[in-house]
């Protein structure tokens, strides 16, 4: 799994490539926590190249969403494939997350 971070002004885009499962969840969480500690509070999670997300991966997204809420920031999940969308829907998370079709749309939402 690969995570690339890009900043567009005050918005940080985290692009996740590969499988976000138990093995890699720790790394993803770490990356996010470091950015949050650096004071960033507007995030776009770009899932367009994410092949699969497990419940451990969902946990990372939930932790991120909670943190962002605590910092009075915003989080957008972008580029979800049908399969990934199903997982989010099944977990009930869709109701508490902002979504966008693409990362660009997500960035626009947060301006």
């Amino acid at each position, binding site marked *: 799994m690969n995570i690339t971070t890009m900043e567009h002004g005050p918005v940080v885009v985290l692009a996740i490539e590969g499988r976000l499962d138990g093995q890699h969840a720790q790394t993803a969480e770490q990356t996010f926590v470091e950015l949050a500690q650096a004071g960033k509070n507007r995030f776009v999670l770009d899932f367009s190249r994410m092949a699969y997300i497990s*419940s*451990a991966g969902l*946990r990372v997204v939930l932790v991120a969403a909670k943190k962002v809420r605590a910092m009075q920031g915003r989080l957008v999940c972008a580029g979800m494939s049908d399969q990934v969308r199903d997982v989010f829907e*099944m977990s*009930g*998370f869709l109701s508490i997350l902002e979504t966008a079709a693409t990362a660009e749309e997500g960035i626009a939402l947060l301006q």
Partner: protein
Amino acid sequence: MLPGNVVVLLLGGAALLLLGGIVVYAAIAHRVRSAKVLFDISMLLNSTLNRREQIAMIMDSVKKVLPVEAASVLLVDAATNELFFVLAQGEKGEEVQEIRLAPGEGLAGLVAQTGESIIVNDPAADSRWSDRVSVQTGFVTRNLLTVPIVNRGQVEGVLQVINKTKNRKFTDRDRQLLERVARPMAVALENARMYEQLEQSMKALQQTTMIKERLESELQIAGGIQMSFLPRTMPSAHEPYDVCALLKSAKEVGGDFYNFFKLDEDRLFFTVGDVSDKGIPAALFMAVTLTLIKGKMRPDLTPGQLLTMVNEELGRDNPLLFATIVCGVFHTGTGELVLSEGGHCTPYIVRANGQFEPVRLRKSLPLAAMPDTVYYDGRYVLEPGDRIVLYTDGITEAENRAQEQYSAERLQQFLTMTPGMSSAELIDALIMHVYMFADGAPQSDDIAVLSLLRRA
């Protein structure tokens, strides 16, 4: 009779010869003794791998041929380039051991840096000699011979002898002898170091093995404790329903769970859940969740109300985990089902004729995901012969070697084949179906399945 002067000549000649012979003999004897010393050293070195013992033995042998008042072996500290004493023989030995020389300090430091031996027979007049050690210990230094200990082109230390006895000076021959002694010393040091490293590795390995074994036994115990949370007895055959459940953890302890118990004469409570993550943290969270459920559920509570209350308790300490869950109450007389869910995969009702229906409940968040989450109730009815099946995503997401998933579709196909099976039979068959699909790929996630059949 020989003339007097011839006798004198002869005597003188004989005396000269004798003297010469004695000198030659002495030289040869010295050579022989030196060689013997070196031989003895190599024999001694084989008798122990302890570094200090080896060095002490070497020095004792050296002193037989090169009697001196004090001798030291210093080694270079690879990290700081300081020299530290590894052996200090002589009356001030103990005090000297505490001293560390800065890089390049004194004769020892100089020899360590240049790799060249140095003889100093008049230290006071020699600017290279540092009197620090001498002053600190009160030892009077008359002369010193210092040689480097070299191993594979690197100076690893310094061998220094001080104050040749009987007030004699150090000679070049002494230097050669000491240099020759330094060679096996370097090898001895290397061997001893390798042996020490090996000993340390062995100790570390032993420790790790011990820890691993202890962890394994603790995990087994934890697994046993966890299983004891689950109901062990299935209700008897004369009940109007047949409920059965199975839990199969991916590791010794897992995060999936199920439970069922009667609330009163007519009502059976049942639940299946999945804690995010696996292993011990998930198992602990699972234990707390089940305990809260069992503690709070009452006949007058709906499943939605129960989950709302449990979520509030669980979320209070802001845990790092969450648990998806489905739970329900089955009225054994009427067949009514009231269900509530939080982030869990869709249960299925399988009708007596084999038709399956996804139970689309109003979705809520998993337990402990967010505080103040509200949970909703959905109502269904099981006719005689109908059943409801709850499971965790360890079933639908089970993968084969091609990383394909078992999927909801295969599960649905399977369910159509289950009319007539008891709950236990259904569960057995489902597990088998999943195993055959996985075709040897290892179980990556916990699995839990529960089947509740209203008897026909």
